[in-house]
């Protein structure tokens, strides 16, 4: 019996601001505990919130990038519950009048091609502090540096149909928000968090099944694995005729299993009401239009443009636009004179490797262009160029030609030298020569290889081939 999987995701992203959502404390990651705190984010008696203009601007831009309508008036609300990482005993969030609603994100589903997921809402809220459980026996330690950091919560419609789709959606969502400059979206650093809701139903059934909420997901891969585990659990229960209860589950990356939370709390009653310390947030339509105009070219548009303007295949365009920085670097390399497909290959290869390692581009675009020219002119072989690239990455001051020379990688293209080596090789391998003349043209590679050996790799292989072809007539 088949089941349809229904998944919706709630994503929280930290907004790239210098200060917190409601006070001027810094949002720096990794400072000593409880040093970026003040009366407001500590929840001291008498303290009051002061909303951060930049957080609102970034949230609005994120909303626009996700196709949402930004509402001219929205309202901050108190979400009331008790938890040690929540200093005021309530979180300032938004409830029935959020900043933005009704967006959509298009992504490539591994199963269904291009899919559009609805974005129910994007709203502003403040982050809680951090709890540390294993440092003091029998105690929980609380660090409020993070308390008050601005967050945008992005809720998707339950439009995803598989765990793999959930992962693909997250990859695209992240990409859009990074492009828009809204957040660093790093799950490792905690600037992007995911809670997933999953249920199953019979294909064609319009009603949604009872959903389970899965939390404590720390990577996109684990989102997929956790959802797979939970889907299996639900299908298992359904097939045995057992009811699926509405539960909250934690994913255990170690075992790959989901488990129910120890405490069977009845679902939270957050008792939302408009925060009386904060008058309504009113945004002028001109301001909203400015945010829209200020957005950079977003991934989908950039992908399409790379395909058309540079004649690149879809795969290349997708890889190159996976990070906005890569896309910009690629275009700089082309501007510096490199042919588009060659540039694409370099950027998708060695450049991307160093980018993933270091997060940057140690070889700036013009220098890479210079290196590519050396290859084109036969001064270095493609293999050698990769070594030169690695060298340039270590020594940013060097020029490509200089580095190649220093490494002894400059090819020998001198006709005389090449002819000399070729003649030596042909003289040393009469049997193979005869076989070649007899029709085994594959042996060209053998001869080239032998010349390369004799020249200790220095011969320009293309030049060698030309000489050999001449010799054989």
């Amino acid at each position: 019996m088949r089941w349809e999987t229904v998944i919706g995701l709630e994503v929280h992203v930290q907004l790239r601001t210098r200060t917190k959502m409601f006070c001027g404390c810094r949002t720096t990651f990794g400072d000593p505990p409880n040093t970026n705190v003040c009366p407001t984010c500590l929840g001291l008696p008498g303290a009051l919130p002061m909303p951060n203009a930049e957080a609102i601007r970034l949230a609005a831009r994120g909303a626009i990038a996700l196709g949402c309508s930004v509402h001219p008036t929205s309202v901050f609300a108190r979400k009331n519950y008790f938890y040690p990482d929540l200093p005021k005993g309530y979180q300032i969030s938004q409830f029935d009048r959020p900043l933005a609603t009704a967006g959509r994100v298009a992504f490539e589903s591994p199963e269904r091609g291009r899919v559009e997921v609805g974005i129910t809402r994007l709203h502003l809220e403040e982050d809680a502090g951090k709890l540390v459980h294993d440092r003091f026996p029998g105690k929980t330690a609380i660090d409020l540096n993070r308390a008050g950091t601005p967050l945008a919560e992005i809720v998707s419609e339950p439009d995803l149909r598989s765990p793999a789709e959930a992962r693909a959606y997250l990859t695209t969502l992240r990409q859009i928000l990074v492009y828009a400059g809204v957040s660093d979206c790093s799950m490792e650093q905690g600037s992007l968090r995911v809670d997933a809701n999953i249920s199953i139903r019979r294909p064609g059934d319009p009603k949604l099944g009872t959903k389970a909420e899965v939390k404590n997901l720390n990577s996109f891969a684990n989102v997929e694995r956790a959802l797979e585990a939970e889907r299996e659990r639900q299908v298992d229960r359904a097939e045995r005729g057992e009811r699926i209860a509405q539960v909250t589950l934690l994913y255990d990356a170690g075992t790959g299993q989901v488990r129910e939370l120890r405490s069977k709390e009845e679902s939270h009653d957050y008792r939302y009401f408009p925060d009386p310390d904060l008058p309504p947030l009113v945004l002028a339509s001109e301001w909203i239009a400015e945010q829209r105009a200020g957005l950079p070219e977003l991934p989908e548009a950039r992908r399409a443009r790379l395909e058309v303007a540079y004649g690149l295949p879809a795969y290349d365009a997708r890889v190159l636009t996976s990070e906005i920085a890569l896309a910009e670097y690629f275009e700089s390399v082309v501007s510096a004179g490199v042919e588009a497909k060659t540039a694409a290959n370099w950027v998708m290869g060695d450049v991307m490797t160093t980018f993933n390692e270091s997060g940057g581009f140690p070889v700036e675009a013009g220098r890479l262009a210079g290196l590519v020219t050396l290859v084109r002119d036969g001064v270095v072989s493609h293999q050698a160029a990769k070594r030169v690239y690695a060298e340039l990455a270590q020594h940013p001051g060097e020029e490509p030609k200089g580095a190649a020379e220093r490494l002894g990688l400059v090819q020998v293209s001198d006709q005389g030298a090449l002819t000399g080596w070729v003649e030596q090789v042909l003289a040393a391998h009469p049997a193979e020569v005869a076989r070649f003349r007899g029709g085994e043209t594959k042996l060209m590679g053998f001869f080239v290889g032998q010349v390369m050996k004799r020249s200790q790799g220095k011969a320009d292989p293309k030049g060698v081939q030309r000489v050999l072809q001449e010799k054989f007539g």
Partner: protein
Amino acid sequence: MSAPAVAAATGARLVAAEASSLNATLHWSQALLDAEARRVEASPGGPLHAVPVAIKDNIVTTDAPTTCASRILEGYVSPYDATAVTRLRSAGAMIAAKTNMDEFAMGSSTEHSAFGRVQHPLDPSRVPGGSSGGSAALVAAGVVPAALGSETGGSVRQPASFCGVVGVKPSYGRVSRFGLVAFGSSLDCISVFGRTVDDASKVLAAMSGHDPLDRTTLERPAMVPPAPRRDLSGLRIGLPREYFPADLHPGVAAAMERTKTAARELGAELVDVSLPNSPYAVPTYYIVAPAEAAANLARFDGVRYGPRKVGPGGDIRALYQATRGHGFGPEVQRRILVGTYVLSAGYYDAYYGKAQRMRARIAEDFRRVFAGGVDLLLTPTTPTPAFRAGEKTEDPVSMYLADIFVCAISLAGLPALSLPVGRTEGLPVGAQLIAPLLEDERMLAAAAALERVVAAEAEVR
């Protein structure tokens, strides 16, 4: 008098007050007073130079504890000062003492303090009113010329009326709440007690004005104490009939008659008006205020400050429940429970939603009346003079009804004051003046004129 001399004299009066079991103060010391005097002497010339001002103990100060008269904040010393306190100091005032109050400002008699009730300065068996009873009593007893209180539903006007002093509530948003421990955030106003309207005006003006630390303050500069009016000619004063019930306490009724006469003699035109939604003000207030309070008091959990108690379970829940269960007094617990209840799932529309709609109607009543050509409203401040201690503590609702004439004004965010206008059987009676939003100065000027002709300490019958 020099600042150090004022400090010494104030300290002597505080000692005497303590000895008299007034119980109006929670924290004060001669050392702190003297330090204030030195500070003020070093930069003289402010509008409040060397004026000793007592501060209600729900306004935070760094050099004395702030307990809100609650065990849950016993020993808590704030690491920052309230804006109001900083501004008073900049004006040259000397902070004299932290005063007793109903716990977390929840009460109308100052009988709900964890540190004992405050006595009425004229009759120890009676209450001074609340929640700012300590501040009212100190001013009435002549210990300090001015004191800060806070209003959420009349907590300065009502004790001012009971104690026979001036009590002024500004328009919501004209005085920063940064550093006022929140009770009902959309209602709370730091307010002032004074012996005279002029004293109170000066203190209010010194604190007022926009504060970026409080986003509910209005973008307006500070108030300037108004020039005194010679009379009330040209003013139309409305008398809302809902505030003059037939069964009004006869002493209060007589005092109001005298006040009306005085106003007419000063040239005011008195007209009948109606605020038809007034009867719903108290029930509306007792939904809105507890709801906001339940959230505002959630931060008192024993985690980051204040004393801590852990129950038998030994876990975080046991910490919350024991700290809060032991730390909060019964009235505070009742209000937290009511507030939590009215916001809880399934009840929001029935209570909080309805209360918000009613609040809008109450505010609209005032707007309509003022727009109809009325400059000020005049009402009694309280339905009776000060009642006896213990009289209303059994039934919470009977205590709430003490706020019947002051509550609606808080809901509408309007400025209002109580002026002592006579005595009945030795107990003070107050009259209330209400002004349109942001017309605080008009109200203060009119009150100053009335003050000159009404014999505040005379028996009315």
